[in-house]
């Protein structure tokens, strides 16, 4: 069963094919022993992957330099014109980017803290913990549209649960129109996203926490270290791999919260909730294939850049303690 540390292992091994101790030895011993027919086994996978995945990915690069509408037989090459327009003069793209960054920031920070807190509370394998973990994880298996409709009702300004609860506890002044409030809508979507996926991240943290040797805490206890000191000196550095995975995955998820946005906002998405993935889709739906392809490449580069930057920041805080 691959564990959360799997990605580390696989990239490392992939980087040094045949040089790893085990694979080299195994390779020699195996050489000549495998049946030639084994080389046919990956062919179905490779065939459909090349035709339907690898080539379209490369074609996206080609489209990005054109003004193709997706249907006409001919189109013009516009060079880097699409990229120029996106990065300098496209208010819709900038709006989606800004919304996406706000959304990402809130989700990454709060969902991660939240998931880690829940994981610390539920790390022991008692019956109650197992049950609660099961409950907290549950929203993850629902479809985004289902979650969106559930939260549409919570946020409904007239009949919704949120305003009703606020009125009930005497906090009428905090009632709101939620998704109807253009400046706040994206943050309300972020809260829904956290409800949706915090349990999933909690599970990754629990796996990380359970791999920390209990003796470390015992020694710290003897040395008189308090809970907070134990957390900063032992837990945080020890769960670094789990944190890196959670943060990267949460980031990617928050760039791709496409279904949730469409469910909460309707299709086409409202300006106040538009994020990059919905923007690319809208461009596509409006037959701006070339332009949307250029947007999608920027989108991909952006995700990669953010994930790499986060790794550096995380490494820094973990070295610091």
């Amino acid at each position: 069963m691959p564990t959360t540390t799997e990605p580390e292992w696989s990239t490392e091994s992939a980087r040094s094919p045949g040089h790893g101790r085990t694979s080299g030895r195994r390779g020699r011993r195996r050489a000549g022993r495998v049946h030639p027919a084994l080389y046919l086994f990956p062919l179905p996978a490779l065939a459909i992957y090349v035709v339907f995945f690898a080539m379209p990915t490369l074609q996206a690069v080609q489209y990005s330099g054109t003004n193709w509408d997706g249907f006409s037989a001919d189109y013009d090459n516009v060079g880097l014109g699409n990229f120029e327009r996106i990065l300098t003069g496209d208010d819709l793209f900038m709006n989606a980017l800004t919304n996406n960054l706000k959304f990402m920031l809130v989700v990454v920070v709060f969902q991660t803290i939240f998931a880690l807190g829940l994981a610390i509370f539920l790390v022991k394998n008692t019956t109650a913990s197992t049950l609660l973990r099961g409950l907290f994880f549950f929203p993850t298996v629902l479809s985004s549209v289902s979650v969106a409709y559930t939260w549409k009702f919570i946020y409904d300004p007239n009949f919704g649960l949120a305003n009703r609860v606020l009125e009930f506890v005497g906090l009428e002044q905090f009632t709101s129109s939620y998704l109807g409030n253009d400046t706040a809508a994206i943050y309300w979507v972020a809260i829904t996203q956290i409800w949706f996926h915090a349990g999933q991240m909690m599970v990754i943290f629990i796996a990380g926490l359970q791999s920390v040797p209990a003796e470390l805490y015992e020694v710290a206890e003897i040395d008189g270290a308090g809970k907070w000191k134990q957390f900063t000196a032992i837990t945080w550095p020890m769960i670094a791999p789990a944190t890196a995975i959670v943060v990267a995955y949460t980031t990617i998820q928050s760039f791709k919260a496409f279904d949730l946005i469409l469910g909460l906002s309707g299709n086409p998405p409202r300006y106040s909730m538009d994020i990059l993935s919905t923007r690319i889709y809208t461009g596509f739906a409006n037959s701006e294939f070339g332009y949307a392809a250029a947007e999608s490449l920027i989108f991909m580069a952006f995700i990669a850049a953010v994930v790499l930057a986060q790794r550096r920041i995380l490494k820094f805080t973990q070295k610091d303690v």
Partner: protein
Amino acid sequence: MRFNLTRGVVLTIYAVIILVPLAVVFFGSFKTTPELFDSPFGLPSSISFDNYDTVLNEQNLSQAFLNSVLVTCSSVALTLFIGSLAAYATARIPGWPGWLIFGFLVLGMTVPAQANMIPQYALFNQLGLLDSRIGLVIINVVVGLPVAVFILGGFMKTLPREAYEASSLDGAGPLRTYWSIVLPMSKPSLAATAIFLFVIQWNDLLYPLLFISSDSKKTIPLALLDFQGQFLTDYPLLFTGVVIASLPMAITYVLLQRYFVAGITAGAVKG
């Protein structure tokens, strides 16, 4: 002591925050709109399946449900089959060719759907695979393959070499070894992969939205998205759709929770 008190309070509040919306939706699917607005938190005054009748028969969600079952089951089975063949080969082929194939297939995990969906749409259009359930199965298999090879290949590399060798000494060819040794030994990772794919593909909205235009071929998430325009504030009908869409996942989750956690965590690296 203070830790335990905080723990109890936080966990209780969070449990309420998760449970109450789910309960409101579930019970709400048996209510009328006035009843829901009147007492959203209460139990339904009577168990009426009128909403279910409307949604399944008049709105034809039963057809969408059937489409989802067909598309998801075929996609998962095909992805597992093609993916496990490739994973087995990459785990056994010695030296760099094995790694190269593995690395190439797994690289797909880092490409977000939005990056290649436009050329994919054009390609499917050329091949006449738009607005077709077969087209949906193909795209699901393609998108699921990298994760499947990643999870299965990682697992198969850890299987003891002796198992493969003993079988080939007995004169079994690779196909036989795959079928009677590798697949049975890989059951836990096959289950985790299957669950991961099942959740992703059952819930997927993007590809049906891109590829499917006829009502009769829509899958559940897409049909559910269409509800929004029609029943802007008829929440009981929306909730009924939500319950129908979620029930298969919810039931499977309760029965196979262990595999859900394993599968979704293993697939968590999917970009």
